[in-house]
């Protein structure tokens, strides 16, 4: 509860700070302080030092798991502001407002990590995405940004509409919004479930797939990610997407047993389609930003494994996956923003001109590709392990398909490494500050740390 209240309040604080000062550096520092406060507030909940108690009529069910995800999301945002804060305030003339919107997104994220009621799911999704529509269009003189915002808004509103319809159908069938009661009355196979519930669940499922950009509901992703200012793409592709997965897993993790075989087939189709579309299309991209957009679809395919296997390992694994993926993607985007040329050729020779940037970028890409001793390896490892744990040969074949696509992903991630290290060129960057380098080093260090000792991250959870 702390995190929800604090994120909303601090968002308002950020908004007012824009009145008090127009110094961009100061605004960024205020945002950092506020994020730290938010982190402390959430940790206070986690370790039961202090928590605000409000009777939510069981609309929320807070658990260590949810708190832990909040910690990850807030820490990732903190690192994100730390490394890209200067670029956030540069997007337009409303620095404080951008940060305020980020806090409101976080409010949505924290609702999604603790919801126990379909209405709260809806509220969380809305609170999370509406600020994003604004952030996408924040570069308002840029037509691409405008186009992306409008596209995102129309598609997003449509998908939320579908979700709302699904919720209504579920309510109509069960007379209840609680996620436990809504679906648990449906023991047995999918065939025995009332048709309203099946349709309702499918609607919600489709809408959530849209939010996490899984195929075949991914078409908005490349355009929106490409059109939005790169700093905000970074935020959307990491923290927001992770929150979508947590919401999805909270809703379906306990239920797929009862949904039966058909559900698994549906999920396998979605997973394979997502992996296929994301990976194969990413191979052909010339722009690193678009490549990252498609790769984020591909990574979503891997995260969906958790939904397929829905065991303890998957629950732990998705936390590790979201943190590994967020760290690496935030770092990659931070470097991308500094590049003058966003195409892969624009990275040619970066190792010569900026060795530290190239080295950390390689670590981020290694992590995204899942090379051992980086966090990304254990992220993938947990996903694969969770599916194999479910037993059965179908699971093993699914995993084999997954790893083959992982090999494809190496192809496009390593193209950037090749450009940086092995090709001649003079990659031009905007000014690189020592602070920026330090922030990149911190992220790289965390990636290696979780790659060597993932126990430490998960250990926090079992504390």
């Amino acid at each position, binding site marked *: 509860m702390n995190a929800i209240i604090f994120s909303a309040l601090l968002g308002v604080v950020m908004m007012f700070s824009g009145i008090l000062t127009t110094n961009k550096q100061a605004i960024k520092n205020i945002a950092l302080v506020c994020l730290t406060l938010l982190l402390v507030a959430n940790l206070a909940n986690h370790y039961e030092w202090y928590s605000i108690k409000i009777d939510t009529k069981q609309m929320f069910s807070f658990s260590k798991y949810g708190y832990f995800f909040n910690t990850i999301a807030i820490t990732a945002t903190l690192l994100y502001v730390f490394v890209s804060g200067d670029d956030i305030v540069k997007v337009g003339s409303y620095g404080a407002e951008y940060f305020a919107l980020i806090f409101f997104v976080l409010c949505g994220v924290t609702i999604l990590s603790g919801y126990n009621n379909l209405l709260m799911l809806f509220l969380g999704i809305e609170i999370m995405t509406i600020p994003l529509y604004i952030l996408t269009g924040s570069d308002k003189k840029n037509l691409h940004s405008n186009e992306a915002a409008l596209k995102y808004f129309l598609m997003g509103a449509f998908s939320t509409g579908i979700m709302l319809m699904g919720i209504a159908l579920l309510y109509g069938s069960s007379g209840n919004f609680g996620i436990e009661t809504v679906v648990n009355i449906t023991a047995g196979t999918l065939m025995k479930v009332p048709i309203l519930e099946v349709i309702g669940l499918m609607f919600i499922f489709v809408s959530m797939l849209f939010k996490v950009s899984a195929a075949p509901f991914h078409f908005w992703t490349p355009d929106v990610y490409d059109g939005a200012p790169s700093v905000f793409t970074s935020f959307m592709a990491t923290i927001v997407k992770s929150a979508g997965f947590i919401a999805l897993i909270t809703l379906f993790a306990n239920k797929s047993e009862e949904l039966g075989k058909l559900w698994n087939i549906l999920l396998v189709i979605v997973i394979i389609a997502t992996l296929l579309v994301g990976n194969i299309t990413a191979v052909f991209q010339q722009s690193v930003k678009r490549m990252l957009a498609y790769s984020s679809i591909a990574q979503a395919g891997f995260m969906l494994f958790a939904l397929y296997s829905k065991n303890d390992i998957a629950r732990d694994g998705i936390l590790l996956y979201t943190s590994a993926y967020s760290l690496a993607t935030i770092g990659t985007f931070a470097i991308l923003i500094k590049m003058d040329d966003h195409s892969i050729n624009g990275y040619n020779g970066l190792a010569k001109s900026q060795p530290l940037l190239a080295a950390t970028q390689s670590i981020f890409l290694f992590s995204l590709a899942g090379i051992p001793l980086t966090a990304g390896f254990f992220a993938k490892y947990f996903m694969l392990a969770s599916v*194999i744990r479910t037993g059965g040969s179908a699971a093993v074949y699914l995993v084999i398909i997954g790893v083959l696509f992982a090999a494809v992903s190496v192809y496009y991630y390593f193209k950037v490494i090749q450009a940086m290290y092995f090709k001649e060129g003079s990659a031009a960057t905007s000014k690189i500050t020592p602070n920026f380098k330090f922030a990149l080093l911190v992220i790289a260090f965390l990636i290696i740390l979780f790659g060597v000792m993932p126990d430490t991250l998960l250990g926090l959870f079992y504390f």
Partner: protein
Amino acid sequence: MIPLSLILLPFVAGILSFFVKSDNGSKQLALFFSIATLAVMLLGLCVFNQSAYHHFDVSWLVSLGSRFTIGLDGMGKMLCLLTAISFPIIIAATYNNKYKSTNNFYALLLLTQAGLMGVFVAMDGLLFYFFWELALIPVYFLCSQWGGEKRIAVTFKFFIYTFIGSLLMLVGLLFLYYKTPQHSFAIKDLYNLHLAASEQNFAFWLFFIAFAIKMPIFPFHTWQPDAYEQSPTAVTMVLSGIMVKMGIFAVLRWLIPIFPDAAAKYGQLIIILSIIGIVYASLIAIKQDDVKRLIAYSSIAHIGLMCAAIFTMNSIGLKGVMLQMFSHGVNVIGLWIIADAIEQQLGTRKFSELGGLAQKAPTLAILLVVLAFANIALPLTNAFIGEFLMFNGLFQYNVYFAAIAGVGIILAAVYTLNMVQKVLYGNTTTITENAVEISGNVKWMLAIITIMIIVFGVYPQPMIDLTKDTVQALIK
């Protein structure tokens, strides 16, 4: 403690080397630390040879059922010895070569050594997988940055190939992990698994493809000649001298003991593939005009024989494999050193442009002839013992297989002697007219290799004794 220091010494040296500014400094550092690693290895074999020194175990990734367990058995000792001997030889023999950003080159080379040592000592499935991948990453950078013209595409092919293989192995490992009752990656738990036939048959291939790509055996070999040709020669030596042994080693340590039934079932198929590879690669080798490509194809043929001998699963064949892993490593490095010496001096590797070197560089000629004999496996060279034992094993398994594989020896004589003749004898060409004798360091390193060839050719018993325990364990 010995296996840990074998990993840590080159690892630390590699990290240090990134920060050494002077070119000579990084060369000296690399040479010093590789010799230090060799010294540790020799100490481990001769002085600290109690088993307490050869095992090390700390807890790591407890919640995943994996531990940092490393240890040396007979085969591990032999391959670590090969690695420890090879690196100083490689570094010394190519000491005068010039590289851009020398410090990074040597840093990556040393990191490769650390990775290789890790592969040979890992006694835990997940740890093994880690080292298996980590040995690859520095090699990827080495080949892509310092290689020939087509290096980027060729190395990438090599990388993707092996990466697909290792991912499949990871799936296999996870599959085994969940079959163990206590969910563990420890090697003894994996050995104690009793899998159903269908599970064995399935998981066997997940592992075998990874190893087959690494060795490489037909039809997974297509990355190899290009990669060998395009890599800087010092790295080619590592690749063909040591890295391909990873594949053979992994089959012996991680495949046969875990899937004995599947290995017996598919053994014949794999032997047939290997024999096809031997004949096919030998025939292609005859057609080559480039020293490097010739050695690359000849290497495929040799590896094919080793792979075939493994799956005969008799003690004599396995003894031969053990010996030959070491011998082939040493011999092929010798051949590469000569290829590099010729290329560095004359700027070409083509037979058609070479000739008459025996007049200009008699020492090189003598050493090349000895190495060529070892490559053909003539008696009194180390390769003879290994190949003889392997053919013996193959003969016991199936006479016809032995006969067809035996063609490989004849073909080896054809292409190797053809190379010797075209490079050393005949009239000098415009390129070789002004050739001079090889430099002192190359001479000394080749002399060391020649001594090893003859000593182990006459008296192979120490190597057989060293790996006896592994062979016995495998037969059982």
